[in-house]
């Protein structure tokens, strides 16, 4: 592991001046501190409780090189398959982790709304982003976040001033291409929704062909009072790609966050979602659907911190696992002492399509107060033979019957995607996922 760590440190030292924000003291210091923390903790190992089901040895053994500019040359047609819509969506496109202006489309953005490349902004106008780049969460399992914070090369910065509305969804597309040496992209994204601002953000990760690459992404969401944000995260990278991602959201009073995650790609995927309900009456729903087959390994960790009274959260995570795939779901709901009138529900449902697929699911409640309504549950099952026979007796062959039942299982999560345009798009991507597995 040390060799891999040292390679990242060497890169950090050699390329410090080229990393975005070098001229900003606070950004430079923040990168250095993150690098130090990473060198102390290293990559997480299975000895850590939160990583016990997921080994990242294969990840650090593959000598990933941070991507460099100049390897793009994609034209708009290349990215069409990865877009929800050409016109009905704003989009910011990153190729191998770096912003591509020609592929992006931001015109008609409402006045005052800021959507920009993080790398450009931190160089041109550092004071706009500095407040959001310094924070880090302590812990010995934060190696990937620390690595991201030390080496991030670009990302999206989205700022919605008070009262603004994004009528069209904003699509942040991260595309990785095939390269001679396996590449790592480390996007750092910040989305700030001011008081009463509304937005729909789509964050999607994809590969061109069977690219062997590693994405280590970090996304910060800040929701001001009464802000409403829908966040759709789509993980559909190649079956030989590695993906580690962290989403951290902080919500002020009366804000509402709807997060939906759909994961189909990647050889190894680990996604964390951490939400803090920091203001009264804040509401959050986290929904996820993961479809894994072959030898795919997918691991989802959520944590919901109710730090204010009268807050509400709901989580629904569904997994479909075939072949030798392995899935992990771990969700924690925390309610500290004195935080009353919180309501929380957490459900994990899983469908195993083969005898060799595996799921470890662990919904947890850490409730340290009274006057709360919290519930959780987990199920693991296989396709219902009665339902299969029922469909066959209506003329469907076994393959179509299985597919229909799997779609039916997925539908509950898919239905939560709004608007219809995005729902249809995600639905199409899922069909592919089911065929692959």
């Amino acid at each position: 592991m040390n060799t891999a760590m040292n390679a990242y440190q060497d890169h950090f030292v050699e390329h410090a001046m080229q990393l975005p924000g070098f001229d900003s003291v606070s950004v430079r210091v923040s990168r250095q501190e993150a690098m130090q923390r990473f060198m102390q903790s290293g990559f997480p190992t299975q000895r850590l409780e939160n990583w016990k089901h997921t080994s990242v040895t294969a990840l650090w053994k593959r000598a990933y090189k941070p991507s460099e500019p100049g390897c793009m040359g994609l034209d708009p047609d290349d990215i069409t398959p990865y877009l929800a819509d050409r016109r009905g969506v704003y989009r910011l496109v990153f190729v191998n982790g770096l912003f591509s202006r020609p592929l992006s489309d931001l015109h008609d953005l409402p006045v005052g709304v800021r959507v920009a490349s993080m790398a450009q902004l931190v160089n041109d106008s550092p004071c706009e982003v500095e407040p959001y780049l310094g924070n880090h969460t302590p812990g010995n399992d934060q190696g990937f976040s620390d690595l991201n914070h030390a080496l991030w090369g670009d990302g999206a910065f989205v700022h919605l001033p008070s009262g603004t509305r994004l009528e069209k969804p904003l699509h942040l597309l991260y595309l990785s291409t095939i390269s001679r040496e396996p590449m790592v992209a480390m996007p750092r994204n910040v989305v700030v929704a001011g008081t009463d601002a509304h937005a729909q953000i789509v964050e999607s990760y994809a590969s061109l062909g069977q690219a062997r690459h590693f994405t280590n992404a970090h996304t910060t969401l800040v929701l001001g009072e009464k802000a409403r944000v829908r966040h759709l995260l789509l993980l559909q990278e190649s079956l030989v790609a590695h993906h580690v991602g962290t989403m951290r959201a902080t919500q002020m009073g009366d804000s509402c966050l709807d997060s939906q995650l759909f994961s189909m790609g990647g050889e190894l995927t680990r996604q964390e979602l951490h939400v803090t309900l920091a203001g009264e009456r804040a509401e959050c729903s986290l929904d996820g659907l993961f479809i894994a087959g072959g030898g795919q390994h997918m691991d989802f960790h959520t944590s919901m911190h109710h730090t204010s009274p009268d807050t509400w959260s709901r989580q629904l995570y569904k997994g479909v696992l075939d072949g030798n795939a392995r899935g992990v779901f771990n969700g924690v709901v925390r309610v500290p002492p004195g935080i009353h009138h919180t309501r929380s529900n957490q459900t994990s449902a899983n469908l195993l399509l083969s005898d060799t697929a595996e799921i470890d699911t662990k919904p947890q409640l850490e409730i340290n107060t009274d006057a709360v309504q919290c519930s959780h549950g987990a199920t693991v099952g296989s396709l219902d033979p009665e339902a299969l026979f029922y469909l066959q007796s209506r003329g469907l062959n076994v393959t179509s019957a299985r597919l229909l039942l799997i779609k039916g299982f997925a539908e509950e999560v898919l239905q939560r995607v709004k608007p219809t345009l995005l729902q249809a798009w995600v639905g199409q991507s899922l069909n592919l996922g089911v065929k692959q597995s």
Partner: protein
Amino acid sequence: MNILEVRNLHVSVMNKPILRGLELHLKPGEVHAIMGPNGSGKSTLANVLAGRGDYQVTAGEILYQGQELLSMAPEDRARAGLFLAFQNPVEIPGVSNVRLLKEAFNAHQRYRRLPEMDAMAFRAYLNERTKSLELSEDWLLRPVNAGFSGGEKKRNELLQMMVLEPHLAILDEIDSGLDIDALAKVAAGINALRDTKRSMLLITHYPRLLEQVPPDKVHVLIGGQIVLCGGLDLAGQLEERGYGWLF
């Protein structure tokens, strides 16, 4: 030619003999009723005809339209026009009625080498049928049987039958759990599908359905064999006297 010939059928479930030498012959256009006490093998017969697993056929044969039925996969039986209305229809959350009907209908069309119906035409085809069954407007968008009442499930089976227009329909206790009004609607639906070619096998406990859908023959199944055969009046007799006198 008979549409269905069941000859000397012996079937076991987990090595326990249920059907012991059952004989049944149905001509095109005929409606037969099968009555019998619980455990006599009525549902076993229905399930074996539809091709459910877990049943061991130890002797006998079944010919459907002159073709050996037992070697056919359940979906091929369905596409060849055999339909089973389930006694306990399965709930399938997440799959809408319209989705299932469309897939099933198109599977039938492909089997018959007919073109698939386009979405608009199919919608009109469905609306005709939902109207005649007096089903609510959102019925087609609701998930298959999920949260349906007993009566709704039965009407949904009937809707599927009306859409798939089978040659042989086996209705396994389609009348159970229905109140008088619902039964009248279901009976009207069944009668609307009766014609000179379509055959039906009504499995029931009650003569009320048979009064509204008069069968050509009534068979009494006891201990895995047909012990008595008669007309509609036989159903009335059974209602009065029970099955005890037949053992």
